[in-house]
C-alpha cells in the first residue's frame, strides 16, 4: 500500500537572471495512511514538492519511490494520485455529477461502477443534493468540496492537497479540516496537505513537514514540533515564541542582557539563542533576582487567555496568562514597569544564528 519515499530530491527552475532552486536535497519518508501537513512560508517550495510527487513536474535530481519502486518514469496518469488544486480547477462546462464522474469515465469504468463512485463521493463531501448544479452556481466552499470529491473518485490511495482550505472563509475552513482528516482516515488514504497556516497544520496532521527555502527543516508530530523545535525558525514558525541571545559563561550558565541565568541543559555553543513560549513567561510587578525589566505596552483579550505585550529594550516580549488568573490583570496597567522571568527547564537552546533578525523574518 502507498508509502512514499523521497530521496535527495532537487528541483531547479531556469530563470532569466539566475536559477531558482525550488527544492534542495529533500529526504522524506511518508508512511502509509498518515496525514501529513506540508508547512512553510510562501515560496519555500511546497507546491513544487507536491507537483513532483504527482508527476506534474520533473525533478532535476533525486528519486521518488512509491512502495519501494521509482515513480520517475511513470506518467501522471500512471501514478494514480488524487490531486486537489489550490484554485479547485473544477471543469466549468461539466455539472457537479459529471465533474466527479470524469475520472472513472476516462478510465473506462462500467456505468454501474461510475454511478456508485459518484454517488458515494458526493455523499462524502455533502453535495448529494445538487448533482446537476454547474460549478459557477456553487459557493467557493462547495467548489472546494467538489474538487475533493473529484480527487477521491478514482479511489486513489494517495491524496495530495495544495492549500485546499486557503480560499475558504474561516468557519467553513475549520469544518472541512476535520472532514478531510476523517475521510482520509476512514479510507486509509495517505495524504499530504500543503498549507502555510500553522494552526491548520497543527490541528489536522499526524505528521508535520516544515520547509524553508527549498529545504526540509524539521519533521515530526505537532507536539514534537511545538515542544522540541530544532531551530529558531521552527520555533518561530510553529506557535509563538520569544527569543533572547546570550553568551556562554559555563556549562549551565548564560549571560543574557547583563544577567547570568541558569540553563537546564549543557551546551557547547559560545553564542546561544534562547527561546521561550509565551505561556512559559512569568510576569511580576516587583523586581527580583534575574528578572528582566520591561514596560507593559498592551493587554489583549484573546478568549481563554490574555496576551501581555511587554516592551523590553528593543524587543517585544509576549506573555500569555489564563483568563482565570484575572487578578493579575488588576495588578498591571498599560505603561507600568513590569518584570518577567522564565524557568531554565522551559527554555529552548540553539546556537545563535548570525543574523537573528533575518532568521525571524520569513
Amino acid at each position, binding site marked *: 500500500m502507498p508509502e512514499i519515499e523521497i530521496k535527495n530530491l532537487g528541483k531547479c527552475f531556469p530563470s532569466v537572471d539566475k536559477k531558482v532552486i525550488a527544492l534542495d536535497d529533500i529526504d522524506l519518508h511518508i508512511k502509509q495512511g498518515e496525514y501529513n501537513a506540508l508547512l512553510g512560508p510562501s515560496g519555500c517550495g511546497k507546491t513544487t514538492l507536491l507537483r513532483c510527487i504527482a508527476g506534474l513536474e520533473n525533478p532535476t535530481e533525486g528519486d521518488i519511490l512509491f512502495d519501494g519502486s521509482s515513480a520517475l518514469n511513470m506518467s501522471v496518469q500512471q501514478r*494514480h494520485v488524487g490531486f486537489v488544486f489550490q484554485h479547485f480547477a473544477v471543469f466549468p462546462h461539466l455539472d457537479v455529477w459529471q465533474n466527479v464522474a470524469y475520472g472513472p469515465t476516462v478510465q473506462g469504468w462500467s456505468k454501474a461502477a461510475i454511478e456508485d463512485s459518484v454517488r458515494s463521493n458526493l455523499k462524502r463531501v455533502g453535495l448529494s443534493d445538487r448533482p446537476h448544479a454547474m460549478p459557477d452556481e456553487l459557493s467557493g466552499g462547495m467548489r472546494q468540496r467538489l474538487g475533493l470529491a473529484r480527487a477521491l473518485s478514482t479511489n486513489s490511495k494517495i491524496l495530495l492537497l495544495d492549500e485546499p482550505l486557503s480560499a475558504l472563509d474561516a468557519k467553513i475552513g475549520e469544518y472541512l479540516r476535520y472532514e478531510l482528516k476523517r475521510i482520509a482516515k476512514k479510507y486509509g488514504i495517505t495524504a499530504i496537505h500543503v498549507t502555510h497556516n500553522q494552526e491548520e497544520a497543527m490541528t489536522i496532521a499526524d505528521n508535520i513537514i516544515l520547509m524553508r527555502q527549498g529545504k526540509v527543516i524539521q519533521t515530526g508530530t505537532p507536539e514534537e514540533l511545538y515542544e522540541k523545535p530544532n531551530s529558531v525558525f521552527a520555533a518561530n514558525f510553529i506557535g509563538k515564541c520569544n527569543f533572547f541571545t546570550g553568551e556562554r559563561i559555563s556549562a549551565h550558565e548564560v549571560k543574557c542582557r547583563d544577567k547570568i541565568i541558569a540553563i537546564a541543559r549543557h551546551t557547547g555553543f559560545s553564542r546561544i539563542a534562547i527561546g521561550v513560549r509565551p505561556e512559559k513567561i512569568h510576569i511580576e510587578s516587583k523586581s527580583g533576582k534575574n528578572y528582566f525589566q520591561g514596560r507593559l505596552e498592551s493587554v489583549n483579550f484573546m478568549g481563554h487567555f490574555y496576551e501581555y505585550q511587554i516592551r523590553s529594550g528593543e524587543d517585544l516580549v509576549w506573555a500569555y496568562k489564563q483568563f482565570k488568573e484575572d487578578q493579575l490583570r488588576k495588578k498591571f496597567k498599560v505603561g507600568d514597569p513590569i518584570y518577567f522571568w522564565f524557568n531554565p527547564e522551559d527554555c529552548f537552546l540553539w546556537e545563535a544564528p548570525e543574523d537573528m533578525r533575518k532568521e525571524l523574518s520569513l
Partner: protein
Amino acid sequence: MSDTKSNHSFAWSKKAAHLGFLSSLLFFVVVIFIPAVYILGYFGNFDALLDPEIIRALFLSLSIGLIVTIFNLILGVPLAWMIVRSKNRFLKWLDNLIDLSLVMPTAALGFSVYFYYGTNWGVARLIGLEGGLVSQGPLLIILLHIVFTLPYMVRSVSAAIMQLDVAYEEAADSLGASPFSFFRTIALPLCRDGVINGAVLSFTRSLSETGATMMVAGVFATAPVLIVSLKDADNFPAAASLSIILILIALLILVLARTAFGKKTFTLPTIRPDFEKKLSGLFSPRNFIVTFVYFAMIFLPTIFLVLYYFMNFKAVDISALTGSLLISFAVAGIVTLFNAFLALPIAYIIARNRMGIGEIVESLNEVILIVPTSALGLSLALFWRQFLPWEIVILILAHLCFTFPLFVKPLVAAFRNISTDQEDAAYSLGAGTVRIFRTVILPQIKPALITGAIMVFMRSLSETGATLAVSQNIKTVSVLIVELFKENRLDEAAIACLILFSFSLVFLVILKKTQTARTVKRV
C-alpha cells in the same frame, strides 16, 4: 453656489457627448451600413440563378471555403496549442510569424503563392520536378486561401487557449485522462467559441477574397471573381443576384455561429480509454509535423516572392507603378484617419451599451466584416453612383466601409478592458467628458488605436474585390498587380509586391511592439 456653474457645464458636456454619439451613429448607419447592404433591395430577380455558370461558381466557392476551413481546423488548432503551451522557445517564437500572412496584401500573396506552387521556381525545384507542382485552378485557390485565412484561426483559437487554465489539463491527467480524451472532453468544449469564431472567419474570408484568387484561378471562377467579370460585362442583374446570395450565405453563417456561441453545458461522451490512448500516440510528433507543415504551406509561400525577386533580379521601369502607389497610399491614409474618428464613438457605444443599442450595432458591424467584398463593392457602387459622380470619392467611401469593422473590433475590446469605475471616478472629481477622454481613456486605448490603424491601412492597400467593383479608371496598386500579372509583366508586379511586402513587414513589427507593450502579466 459655485456648484451650479459646474453642474451646468457638466450637463452641457453630457448633452454634447450625447449629440456626438447620435451623429456618429447616424453616419455609421447611412454611410457605412446601408450602402453595404443596399444591394439587398435588388432582391427578386433570380433568373440569373439558373445560369449554370453562376451555380458552378457558387459551388466552387462554397466547397473551397469548406475545405479551407477544415484544413485550418486541422492545422490551426494544434498550431495554436503549440504556440501557447509549448515550453520550447523557438516554437513560441513562431507566434511572431503567424500574423505575417495576415498583414500581407493578398495581391502580393497571390503572386507569391503562384510562384511557390505553380512554377518551376518554387517547391517543384526543391523536389526536382520540371514545371510547376500545382497548376492554376481550384487546388491552387485552396492552397492560397489557406495561407491568408490560417492566421484568423490561429489567433482566435490561441486567444481561447490562453484563457484555459493549465490546471484543467493537470486535473484531467491526474484523473487518468489520456491526452486525446482531455482534448476532446475538456480543451475542445472549453475553447469552442474560439474555434467557431476562427472557422467563421476562415470560411467568410475564403468566400470573399477576389484579387489574389483571380491570379491563381486560371479558367475557373469563384463567386466573387464571377461578380467582377459579370459587372465588367455590364451584366448587372446577374452580378447583383450573385452578390445577394453571397451576402445571405454570410449572414446565415453568422446567425448559425451566434446561436452556437455561449452554450455552456456539455455531456461527457463514452470513452474507450485504450483506443484513445493509442490515438494520443499521434500527439507526440505533433509539434514537429505542425511546424513543418506551417513552414511548407504557409510561411514559405508567403515570403516566396522575395526569393523570386532575388532570383530574377532585373532593373525594371516602375513608372507605371508610381501613380497607383500614390493613389493607394493616399486612399489608405484618408480612410485610416476618417475611420479613427468614426470608430471611436461607435466602439464606445458597443462596449458600454450606450442607449441600449450596443448589441445591435455590434451585430451590424459584424455583418459588414463577413460580407464578401466584391458583393459589398457592387452594393456600394450601385448606391453611391446615384448621388456622386466622382469615382475617387466612391472609392474612398467603399474602403471606408469595409475597413470600418476592423477598426471597431480592437477598440471595443480595449474599451471593455477599462472599468467604468475609472470613468465614474474621474467624473466624480469633476472632469468633463472631453477631458476624461483625453486623460483617462485615450492613453489606455492607444495600443488598440495603433492596431486598428494598421489593420485598416493594410486592408485598404491590399483589397481588390470591392475596389474592382467600384472603380472604372482608377487603379489601386493591388488592382494593378493583378493586371500586370495577367498581362505577364511579372517583373513590374514583383516590384510592386515587394514594396507592399516591405510595408507589411514594418507594420507587423510595430504591431508586435504595441502588443507586447500591452501584454498583461500572466499568472
